[in-house]
Structures are given as structure tokens and as C-alpha cells.
């Protein structure tokens, strides 16, 4: 396993070296693909000058706002819809009507109402994270072990206690799945909405650099996004391990049987 990982890294490194050499030799148009060393230099300049951290902070603020709001609204709604068949039926049609809307086409709609401000991006992220969070939570709440529920009832727990102490923990693996699926969606929508209607943020930075033919800047922005995507995923996993250690143990137990 270790050896194969090393192979992959070496191969990756080899590709990067070939890129650098080909670019140095002038075989590719530097206006389209500059040398790797140049991109890295621009990247480090932009990081130290504070330009990239600033844009990332702007984008992340929007992403976090939309993501957290979606979680706060759609986890409770999902639990309600999972527990009560009538609530589910009530909202089913609306959900089914809105779900096929491709999230980026909500950008012009949101621009109409909210202009180019932060609110527009936050709304678009909120909208696009809604479905994975809602549908996963709903599924989790609906499939809670009947024995668990009945046991809680026999012990005379109140409705709220059942939701808080039984259903929420039992549905949490699926809630986590929904939150995890939403993470890359959030990043994608932040970037799209900044490309379509914004004057700052990392998405705007990338598109603007391309339009001014500052190609190395553009690639530096993309590198930032790749790092950001990776880091967000790692953060999430760390968080998950801290919050739900019992679930990992439980999974292992099930796997080992």
C-alpha cells in the first residue's frame, strides 16, 4: 500500500517536472500554460502579499453562511419530514418541483432580488445545499430502528427528548453524509456565483485574471481552490471524528462482525 502510494507521488512529480521542462524549452505557449515554477512563484507572492488570503476569506465567509443556514433549516425540516408522514406529504410536491432546478440558474434569479451583494451568493449556496441535507436527513430519521424508538417510549421519554436523544444520534450518520456531500457543492456554487456576479472572492479573482491575461495568477487561483477543497474535506473528516467517535467504532464493529 505504502509503496504504491510512493509510486503515484513519484509519477505525479515526474509529470510536474516534464511540464516545467517543456515550458522552459518554450514548447508551449506561455500565454496559455506558463511554467510551473512561475505559477508557484506568483502563488507564493500572492499568498505573502495577502491577496489570496483576502479573497479566500471573502469566499469562505459566504460559503460558511450559506452552508450553516442550510444546515440549520433543513436538518430540522428533514427530521420532521422523516418522522411525520403528513409533514412529508405536505412538502413533497414543493421539494419535487424545486429539486430539478440546476443551482446555477438560481444565480440570475437571486441577482434580481439581492443584487451582487453577499446575500445573493449566500442564498444560492443555501438553495443548492438544501437537497442533499434535506433528503439525507429525511432518510436517516425515517429509518431509525423501531426498537430504539419503542424502547425510548417505554422508558417514558418526552417527544423532545426522543428527538434529541434517540432520533438525532441515530440519524446522524446520514445527516453527516448530507453535510459532506454539500461541502463540494458549496465550494462550486461560491465559485460560480462569484464568476457570474461579483467583484471579489476567489472565483472572481480567477476569472478576472483570465480576462486580463494574467495567466499565472489564474493558475495560482486554481491551485488555491484545489488546496481549499482538499483542506475543507480534511477538516470535515477531523470534525466528524471528534464529534462522532462512537459512530466510527460502530462502523468498525459492523464491518468486523
Amino acid at each position, binding site marked *: 500500500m505504502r509503496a504504491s502510494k510512493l509510486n*503515484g507521488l513519484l*509519477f505525479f512529480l515526474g*509529470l510536474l517536472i516534464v511540464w516545467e521542462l517543456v515550458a522552459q524549452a518554450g514548447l508551449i505557449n506561455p500565454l496559455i500554460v506558463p511554467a510551473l515554477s512561475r505559477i508557484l512563484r506568483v502563488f507564493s507572492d500572492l499568498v505573502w502579499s495577502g491577496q489570496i488570503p483576502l479573497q479566500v476569506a471573502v469566499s469562505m465567509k459566504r460559503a460558511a453562511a450559506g452552508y450553516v443556514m442550510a444546515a440549520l433549516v433543513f436538518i430540522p425540516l428533514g427530521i420532521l419530514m422523516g418522522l411525520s408522514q403528513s409533514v412529508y406529504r405536505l412538502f413533497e410536491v414543493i421539494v419535487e418541483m424545486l429539486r430539478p*432546478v440546476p443551482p446555477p440558474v438560481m444565480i*440570475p*434569479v437571486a441577482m434580481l*432580488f439581492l443584487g451582487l451583494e453577499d446575500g445573493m451568493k449566500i442564498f444560492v449556496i443555501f438553495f443548492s445545499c438544501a437537497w442533499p441535507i434535506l433528503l439525507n436527513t429525511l432518510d436517516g430519521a425515517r429509518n431509525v430502528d423501531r426498537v430504539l424508538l419503542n424502547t425510548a417510549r417505554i422508558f417514558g421519554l418526552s417527544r423532545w427528548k426522543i428527538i434529541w436523544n434517540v432520533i438525532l444520534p441515530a440519524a446522524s450518520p446520514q445527516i453527516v453524509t448530507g453535510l459532506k456531500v454539500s461541502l463540494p457543492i458549496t465550494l462550486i456554487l461560491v465559485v*460560480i456565483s462569484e464568476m457570474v456576479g461579483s467583484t471579489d472572492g476567489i472565483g472572481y479573482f480567477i476569472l478576472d485574471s483570465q480576462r486580463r491575461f494574467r495567466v499565472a495568477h489564474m493558475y495560482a487561483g486554481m491551485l488555491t481552490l484545489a488546496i481549499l477543497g482538499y483542506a475543507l474535506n480534511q477538516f470535515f473528516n477531523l470534525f466528524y471524528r471528534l464529534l462522532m467517535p462512537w459512530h466510527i467504532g460502530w462502523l468498525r464493529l459492523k464491518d468486523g462482525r
Partner: protein
Amino acid sequence: MNVGRDFNWAGWMLFALLLLLWEFGSRLSPALQSYLPPVSRILRSLGELIISGQLVRHLMITLSRFLQGYLLAASIAVILGIVLGYFRMAHSLFEAVIEFLRPMPSVAIIPVAVLLLGIGDAMIVAVTVYASVWPVLINTIDGVRHLERTLIDTGRTFGLNRRKILWLVVLPAAAPYIVTGLRISLSIALILVTTAEMIAGSRGLGFFILDQERSMNSSNMYAGVVLVSALGYVLNRLFVLGEGWAMQWRRGMLARESI
């Protein structure tokens, strides 16, 4: 669905109520009208735009870009996924490259594609291919790697050559995974086509919607949104139908296993 197939009165009533509220709220408030025209006006715009052929043209352009991008991505990803899943060596070589590229939001590739291909169909299709490849690729690799060795060994014992094993054993066994990837890619491809049309397009539904927003023709804009959503919905239904048809054998197999 464990829910009965009877008509969902409550759901449709709430939906109709919201539409009515929208219709009359918008009629009563002129300030709201420029943002949120009455439903009836949006539907009339939709009808007019379809009859005049304007919207149909954009729809066809978007659809053809979508199909080219999606089908190309699917074929590339399935072939590559089988190769990378089957040959351990190839997988270990490309693993780091994949792990590096995958977390980057695929829309970030649009500016690069514009530099390389200019603005036009080729750019939009290329971007769609890039983004839709990942889910199918990752799922196909997973499917092939989770394959039971006994299946391959049985194939070998029966004297199948490598190509036949790939075609008759590996591909069907990985099919459920591949289908999952294909379903995820379906919505991703539509997202990328519309996004690319918004950012660097002069035709297509994504362009149309943004263009109508900029010229403050809000009812035309909503008509475009309705049409794109209908397109997404229809594509999804077609996929589910196709899946049911193509994977019939699997349902039979699962049913037999459960006996």
C-alpha cells in the same frame, strides 16, 4: 417508496396555495412585479417564447452540448475506470494525480478552457466532459476493485481471454457502481453546461436566463428557469427509465439471491 400511490392532496394543495399567493401578491404590488411577475405572465412568456421558436433554439443548443459532453465523459470515464480499476499498477501511478485534481471545484476549469478553446461549443463541451468524468471514473474504479476474485477466476477457468473477461465479467459486475456514477454526472453535466453558458456563452439556456435578467425581462428569465428545470427533470426520468430497462437482469439476480 413505501408511500401509497394515491394522489397527494395535501402536497398539491399547499403547492397550489403558494402559486395563488404568488400570483395575487405580485398582481397587488407593482414594486414586487418587476422581480416576481405573476405566474400567469411567466407561463404566457414561456408559451410565447416557445411558439416563436426563440427558446426552443436555445434549448436545442443546450441539449446538444449537454449530450456531447455527457456521453463523451461517460465513455472516457468508463474505459479509463476499468483500466485503472483492473490494473493495480496503472491505478497506483495515477492515484496521486486524481487525488490532487478531484477536490478542485470543476468550474474553476472554465477560464482555462476559455484560454485554450476560446468561447464556443468546444469550450463548453470540454468543460462539461472534465466535470462529468470524475463521478463516473471514481465509481467505476471502485466497482472494478470491489469485484469478487472468484468471478474472474471462474472466467479464466472457462478459458476466457482477457478482453472477454473485461467485457463479460468485469463490466457487468461493476455496472451498478457505474450507474451510480452516471446518475451523479447527469446533474453535474447540466450544471456545467448552464454555468459555462452564463460565464462565456452567447447562446443556450444559461446565457438566455442571465441575458434576460440583465435586461430586466424577469418573466422571460423565469420562463427560462422553468424550461431548464423541466429539462433536468426529463433527463433524470429518462435516466431512471433507461436504468430500469438496462439493469433488469440485476433485479432478477438480487431476487434470486434473496430466495
